[in-house]
């Protein structure tokens, strides 16, 4: 058995109105070359102008990952020739990244682990190339889109941790509102560095790099394939070659691309067209204030304060909208466990069934709170409550309106119920006799009868009480 050492480099496109250094739109589209400014084409004489929103979002993400921010914003040039890089250099950050020395906690089934973040920097995306048999096409829509790159320390031990890290990281992006992080649109991509070492070895083994893996499941499969491959190489007494490998989506295998990845000299130097801008404490504090309560923190609260199960807490924090929805219900004074039940069953179930997002769902947290309150006050049965909620989602009518219109509010008026109870008792003297013979359980039969008569509106608890009272009188 060998010890596996994995480091990840994650690229994520930021959600901004315009590109990182130009005024072209940052917007996903299938029509090529529509979101293009002179700057994105690298025409002679162009100058980059930094997008403040991108800077802010990069700093914000760095903060959310517990990184140290720099004293000033500064960019570097990474020089290399490739047709998808129109300027012949990429504007990135080497000297002063937006964040260094951070960490992100991941929650595995039976343990928690801090994944160390080496750095987070802001850079620009390249154009995209479409290769055909004897020609290639360039789409500059992607050229210059703001991109953050997050580099972890080599501290990940297996594919599960890697995937959990990516999921947790993606969640941070979404919680902070910095990106949609949709890997289907290529908004989140991942490079994997992986090496194997003897259990007690002091030095890392030879590193293999796998570039641009575009889905979490592929990351998992690529890592697992590489572990097997490298194990085989080492067990047969050979050495792992330092190289870049490509993961093939179809065969689920990795293939050698080129050796010695460190040999490229990118001739980095500070971008002279953007003077360094000092970051004030006030500015950073302002950004910090905008960071919402993050998933791990919420997870802890749900377990420690609300006494939810780890499973339920995980389900709730997995999506910020759900967590916010859940917390809004609690803010309305609803018991957290009760709130959790309703959200994880009726609400999440409906989202799946209706294939809508929470935002599109008609029933708001306040509406649901109102319904739960009616149940607590014995004014509504759980069964009716569910029916009302589903109808509300369907017909887009407020649940309370439905209750009013259909007189679905629970009957808990003693006198009203007593009338129905006595009717039922009168009609079924034989069952009353059974009760008198000591068969207490037949009381439930009368609950059913009263329910029938009240179209399910009777409070079952109250009804049972009254049945017991009335039946003893006979």
């Amino acid at each position, binding site marked *: 058995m060998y010890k596996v050492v994995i480091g990840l480099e994650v690229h994520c496109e930021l959600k901004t109105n315009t590109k990182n250094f130009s005024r072209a739109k940052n917007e996903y589209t299938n029509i090529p070359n529509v979101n293009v400014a*002179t700057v994105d*084409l*690298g*025409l*002679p*004489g*162009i*100058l*980059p*102008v*930094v997008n403040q929103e991108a800077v802010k979002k990069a700093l914000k993400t760095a903060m959310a990952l517990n990184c140290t921010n720099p004293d000033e914003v500064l960019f570097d*040039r990474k*020089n290399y*020739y*490739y*047709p998808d890089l*129109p*300027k*012949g*250099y990429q504007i990135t950050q080497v000297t002063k990244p937006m964040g260094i020395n951070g960490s992100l906690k991941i929650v595995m089934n039976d343990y928690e682990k801090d994944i160390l973040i080496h750095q987070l920097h802001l850079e620009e995306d390249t154009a995209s190339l479409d290769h055909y048999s004897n020609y*290639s096409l*360039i789409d500059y829509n992607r050229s210059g889109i703001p991109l953050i790159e997050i580099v972890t320390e080599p501290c990940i031990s297996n594919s599960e941790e890697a995937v959990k890290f990516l999921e947790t990281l993606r969640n941070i992006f979404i919680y902070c509102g910095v990106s949609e992080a949709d890997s289907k649109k290529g908004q989140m991509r991942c490079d994997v560095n992986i090496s194997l070492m003897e259990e007690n070895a002091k030095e890392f083994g030879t590193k293999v790099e796998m570039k641009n893996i575009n889905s979490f499941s592929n990351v998992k499969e690529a890592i697992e394939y590489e572990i097997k491959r490298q194990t085989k190489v080492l067990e047969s007494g050979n050495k792992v070659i330092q190289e870049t490998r490509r993961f093939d989506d179809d065969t689920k295998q990795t293939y050698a691309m080129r050796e010695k990845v460190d040999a490229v*000299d990118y*001739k980095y*130097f500070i971008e*002279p*067209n*953007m*003077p360094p801008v000092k970051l004030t404490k006030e500015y950073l504090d302002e950004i910090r204030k905008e960071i919402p309560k993050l998933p791990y923190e919420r997870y802890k609260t749900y377990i420690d304060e609300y006494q939810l199960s780890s499973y339920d807490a995980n389900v709730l924090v997995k999506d910020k909208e759900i967590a916010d929805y859940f917390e809004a219900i609690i803010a309305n004074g609803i018991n957290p466990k009760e709130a959790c039940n309703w959200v994880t069953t009726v609400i999440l179930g409906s989202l799946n069934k209706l294939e809508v997002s929470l935002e599109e769902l008609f029933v708001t947290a306040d509406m649901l709170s109102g319904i739960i309150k009616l149940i607590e006050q014995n004014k509504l049965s759980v069964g009716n409550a569910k029916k009302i909620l589903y109808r509300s989602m369907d017909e887009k009518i407020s649940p309370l309106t439905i209750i009013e219109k259909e007189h679905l509010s629970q009957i808990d008026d003693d006198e009203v119920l007593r009338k129905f109870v006595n009717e039922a008792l009168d009609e079924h003297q034989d069952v009353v006799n059974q009760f008198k013979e000591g068969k207490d359980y037949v009381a439930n039969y009368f609950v059913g009868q009263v329910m029938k008569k009240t179209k399910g509106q009777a409070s079952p608890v109250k009804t049972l009480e009254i049945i017991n009272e009335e039946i003893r009188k006979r």
Partner: protein
Amino acid sequence: MEYRKSTILDLRKSLDNNEITGEQLFEEANKLAHNYQNINSFVTIIDKYNHRKSNSILDNIPYALKDNFSTRGILSTACSNILKDYVPVYDATVYKKLKDSGALLVGKTTLDELAMGGTGTTGNTGIVKNPWDETRAIGGSSAGSASCVALGITPFSIGSDTGDSIRKPAAYGGVVGFKPTYGLISRYGLFAFASSLDHVGCFTRSVLDAAIVTDIIKGYDHHDMTSLKSVGKLQDSINDEVKGRKLFYFKDVCDPNNYDKNDSELIEVLNKFNETIDKVKELGIIVEEVEFPKELLMALYPTYMAISCAEATSNNSNLTGIQFGPRGEGNSIEEIMFDARTKGFSEFIKRRFVLGSYILQKENQEKLFKNAQRVRRLVVDRMVELFKTYDGLIMPTSGTIAPHFEDSSDKLSDKYLILENHLVIGNFGGFPSISIPSGFVNKMPISINITGNQNNDGLVLNIANKIEEKLGYKGIIAGDDNV
């Protein structure tokens, strides 16, 4: 009114008094541009009067623009084969401002290829001749912009200055060359050579005209993060009292005793400089000699080459023939780019790129690039320190008159190293710097340069204006009736 000898202000008056129209001025300039084709000032001559009316002082005033500015719909070649058919899709801010102020573009002027060079002989359309003596160069890189104003084809022109590319050819051509504080004029649309050193500036035949032109083209530009918020009008302080102002010059560099006695031309340039200093003193300006560390002065040129070549190699990486420009041939994308760049640049440019690339290599960066930046910082700090005592540096713009073509080269030489390379101090520090004619040696114009502290553009122009008045070489012109 004689068009060729007129300053901007002269033309303004004639236009305002309806003695002449913009169309007539344009026709005149266009005719001269064609007549003086032997000088090779222009890559492109505009033949159609195209005017956007405005109330600006430059309305209907003809001018020329260096061919390394982006002009939408008009060929912009930077005198390089790799851009020989390049027609931009956008306007440089300077060009846009001039268009909006009603100025009339007469032509795009010749430069050393990609503005890298100081001779005016390396452009892909041939050498630019000095109108004062056609066997001589006018210097570069803004060669065409200098010669066109020297000839009076236009009263002003726009150039760019990375080391001395406006001020040196201005000196050799007997005109005023001004580059203001870094950032005062937007660089958006100027084909980048070395971004941290590149300046936009102008050629005129009077200091006042330089202030007038700069006032129009300066100002903050949202396309250029290094551009500065606009200050007041530079013209306003141009006639201020200069009595009591203090200037300095580098002692050893300007002392004729430190040079070969047989080099009569140099000795005469320096003697004339000292005569000029005496006249400057008559204005009540205090002029003192200052010791400046020799090793820093000796390091100016290598430092400049290290920084400028490094930035240039990166800045010109967009010229691959992929997005625009002649497409190379080859079996792979690498071969295609390689071929386009091999054919597109002259040997001279390739040498600079190789140099720049070498300087930026990981193993050389600390020793070559970072050290160059440290020297630059030392020079600038020293200058800023001196500017606490002095209002400006006054120096001969060059130790020579315009060189003959056979002597004109960009090779590193030991001779007069400092006198020929001190102008780069203005680029290192982004200092406002102006060269004005100060007389003649061997019937060729000579010049002095005044460089002041950052953002003191008004003061530099004020002092230069007063000295110009005192020396009496305002408005000199080359061509038919030489001095």
